[in-house]
């Protein structure tokens, strides 16, 4: 069994109003050193062993459903599941 960690973020070219609001809030609290905040998503998948290439399958899942590549970028890490 493998654990796959998928990180999804808005593309650089896409405005992130949530991130901007959080940045404003951090500035109000005195954290002036915060230059930018981007908010994304984190997904964990538990994947059973199969004869398909794990990297290929995860990439497919990311592009078909887990992310919308018009507005989002993703990266993933594969670990041994406990």
């Amino acid at each position, binding site marked *: 069994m493998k654990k796959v960690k998928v990180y999804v973020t808005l593309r650089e070219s896409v405005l992130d*109003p949530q991130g901007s*609001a959080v940045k404003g809030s951090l500035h109000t609290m005195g954290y002036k050193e915060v230059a930018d905040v981007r908010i994304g998503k984190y997904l964990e998948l538990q994947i059973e062993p199969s004869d398909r290439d794990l990297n290929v399958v995860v990439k497919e899942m990311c592009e*078909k459903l887990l992310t919308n590549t*018009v*507005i989002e970028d993703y990266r993933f890490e594969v670990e041994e599941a406990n």
Partner: protein
Amino acid sequence: MKFAVLVFPGSNCDLDMYHAIKDELGEEAEYVWHDTKDLSSYDGILLPGGFSYGDYLRCGAIARSSNVMTEVVKAAEAGKPILGVCNGFQILTEAGLLPGALLRNKNLKFMCRTVDLKVVNNNTQFTNQYAKDEIIKVPIAHGEGNYYCDEDTLQSLKDNNQIVFTYSSENPNGSLEDIAGIVNERGNVLGMMPHPERAVNELIGGADGLAVFKSIVKQWRESHVNQA
């Protein structure tokens, strides 16, 4: 003309859509559940607003993979008129039937009010009953209606006259170039954030949306007379 009103778990404008077709337009309408595997008996397909699958993952992302969407793609390829309103628009972009995506409103607020729309393109099967640049009043109700696409896509939308409606007096959600509704290149799939089905009778505050449905029927009748 017989319309399918698609119903996903979490759709909530399906009744308004049905009412608009049946009672105001006087055409046939049927509710069609999301697991349906055949839409061949319908002349037009309507994707209503709401929060399909609770907007989980992304608006429209889960609905996009339901059985009925395979049939919607076939209907689009067959040239049938397909209208997606609000969540329906989001589903059509997720399904790749329309370019771009709908992002969170720029001000992060759910916007619920009547807005002025400009009919930028009245030469479509959804807007032939409007005048060019006519200003109409149609309600909006969404938290994620901020239309976005990359520069190349925007240019091709302009080159092909695919921008159909724009926000006129104010831009309520930060959408690119005030875009409120677009068609696909072929012109038979329209997605729009405002709700024409909620503006079909003066009793409910206005009837400016009814012409969207009248346009579809007019085009359909004409194309079928020509074939006969």
